[in-house]
C-alpha cells in the first residue's frame, strides 16, 4: 500500500513573505519617525505609508498589502482599527494589477497603473470619510468629499500612493512582477468597494 504525504502549500512564497515583512517594517519606521508631508489639515500630515502598501501589493499580492497595513496601523495614533480602511485600495489594485502588468506598451502600462490607483484611492477614501464623519465627527462626508476632491489632498495622496510605485513599475518591472495568485480577488475588490462607498454615502 502506498502512503502519500500531503504537503500543505503555504499561502505566500518566501519572496512574498520577505517583501511584506521588509515593506511593513519600512512603513512602520517612516510612520513612527513622523516622515510625512505637511498641510492636510492643521497639524495633520499626509503620511507616506501608501507608497509601501502599494509596492508590497504589486510585488507580493494583496495579503502582503494587508500585512503592511496591519503593521502600519500598529504605530498609527488610531490603532489597529484603522487597518481595514486600507483594504478596498489593496483589493482594487490587486484585481487589476496583473492585467496592467501584462500590457506590453510601457507608456500605456504606466497610464493604466495611474488610472487604477486613482480609482482605488477614490474608493478607499469613502471608508475613511465614514470613519472621520461617523466615529470621530471631525467633518461631514460631504465636506470631506469637496475638500479632498477639489481642495488638492486627493492629488497629493495619489502622488504618495502611485508616484514611486509607478517609477518602480517602469524602471525595475521584474521586482514588481505579479508572481502571486489570489482566487476571488475581483469579488473581494467589488464587495470591499461597495461596503466603503455605501458607508460613506449613508453618512453623506
Amino acid at each position, binding site marked *: 500500500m502506498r502512503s502519500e504525504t500531503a504537503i500543505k502549500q*503555504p499561502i505566500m512564497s518566501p519572496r*512574498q513573505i520577505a517583501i511584506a515583512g521588509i515593506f511593513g517594517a519600512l512603513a512602520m519606521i517612516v510612520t513612527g519617525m513622523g516622515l510625512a508631508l505637511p498641510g492636510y489639515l492643521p497639524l495633520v500630515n499626509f503620511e507616506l505609508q501608501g507608497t509601501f502598501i502599494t509596492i508590497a501589493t504589486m510585488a507580493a499580492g494583496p495579503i502582503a498589502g494587508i500585512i503592511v497595513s496591519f503593521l502600519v496601523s500598529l504605530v498609527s495614533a488610531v490603532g489597529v482599527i484603522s487597518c481595514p480602511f486600507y483594504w478596498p485600495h489593496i483589493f482594487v489594485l490587486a484585481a487589476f494589477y496583473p492585467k496592467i502588468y501584462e500590457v506590453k506598451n510601457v507608456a500605456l502600462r504606466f497610464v493604466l497603473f495611474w488610472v487604477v490607483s486613482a480609482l482605488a484611492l477614490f474608493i478607499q477614501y469613502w471608508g475613511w470619510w465614514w470613519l472621520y464623519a461617523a466615529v470621530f465627527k471631525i467633518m461631514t462626508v460631504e465636506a470631506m468629499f469637496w475638500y479632498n476632491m477639489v481642495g488638492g489632498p486627493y492629488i497629493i495622496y495619489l502622488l504618495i500612493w502611485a508616484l514611486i510605485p509607478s517609477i518602480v513599475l517602469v524602471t525595475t518591472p521584474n521586482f514588481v512582477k505579479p508572481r502571486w495568485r489570489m482566487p476571488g480577488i475581483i469579488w473581494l475588490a467589488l464587495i470591499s468597494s461597495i461596503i466603503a462607498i455605501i458607508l460613506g454615502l449613508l453618512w453623506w
Partner: protein
Amino acid sequence: MSVISTFFGYKPLDTFMHRFDGRVKFLLYLAFVISAVAWSDPIYLLCLLAVVLICGKLAKDYFSSMIKTILIPFPGYIMILLFNIFAFDYTVKQTLSWTPLYIGWAIPKIGSFGPYGHVSIEGLTFTLGVCLRLGIFILASRLFLRVASPSDIVAALEKLKIPLSITMAISVAFGYLPELARQVSSILEAQKVRGWNIKTKNPFKVAKAFAPIVVPIVTRSMTRAEFIAAAMVSRGFGASSKRLSLKEIKFTKKDYIATAILLTFLGVSILIGIWVLNIANFRFTSFLIRSLLSQRLL
C-alpha cells in the same frame, strides 16, 4: 530593544498587565475600542477612560505621560468642537426627542453679519463624548503596545491560527526594524550632508523634496527583500509542515478569568451601545445637565 521601544513604546516589565497572554491583551484593546465606538455618552466614556488609565497604571505607566498622550491630538479636539458647534443642528439634532437647550452663539450678530454657531448643552455634551472617544482610542493603543511585545503579537497571532506565512512576515518586519531604522537614519543623514532640506510648506514641493529620501529607501529595501527571500529558501522554509515555536504561550487561569470578564464586558457594552439598546447615548448626560440646570433655576 531600544528601537522597538521607540516605535512601539513596549516596556519589558513584569507587571500584572504584562503577564497576560497576548490574546488577552488584544481582547482588552478591542474591548476598549469597540466600547468607545458603541458609546457616545461622556459619563460612560469617562468611566471607560478611567478604566484605561487604571490599566495603564497597572502596567506601571506614568499618569502624566498618559494624559500627555491623550492631549497629543489637541488640534483635532478643537476641530471636533468647531465642527460640532456649527454642524450639530444639521447632523445630530434630529436624533433628539426634545429641543436642545441653547446657551448662546459662537459668533454673535455684528451688524448684518451673523449670528453663527448656535451652542447648545446637547451639542457640547456630544462633542465632549466624541473627544473622549478619540482619547480612549489613542490611550488604548498606547496601553496595548506598552504591554504587548512584538513576540507576544506574533505568538498570539500564531495561536489564533493565523497562517504561518502571515505571522512569519510580521516576524520578519519586527526582526528587521532596528536594521531598517538605522538604514533610514543613515540615508536621511547622508542626504542632509548633501544639503537636503525642506524649506517650503507647499505639499507638492515637499513631495518632490522627499524623492531623494524615499527612492534610496525603496531601492535598498527591494534588494534586502530579495536577500531575505533567498536566505529563507536556502534554509528550507516551508519544507517541514511541523514548526516549533521559540516562545510557547499557554492560557493560564488568570487569562481564562480575564477573557470571561472581557467578553462579558464587551457583550454588555454592545448591548447598551448605539447598535442595540442605545442607553449609553449622549442624551443621558444632556438630560442630567438639563435637569440640574432646571432645578437650580427653580
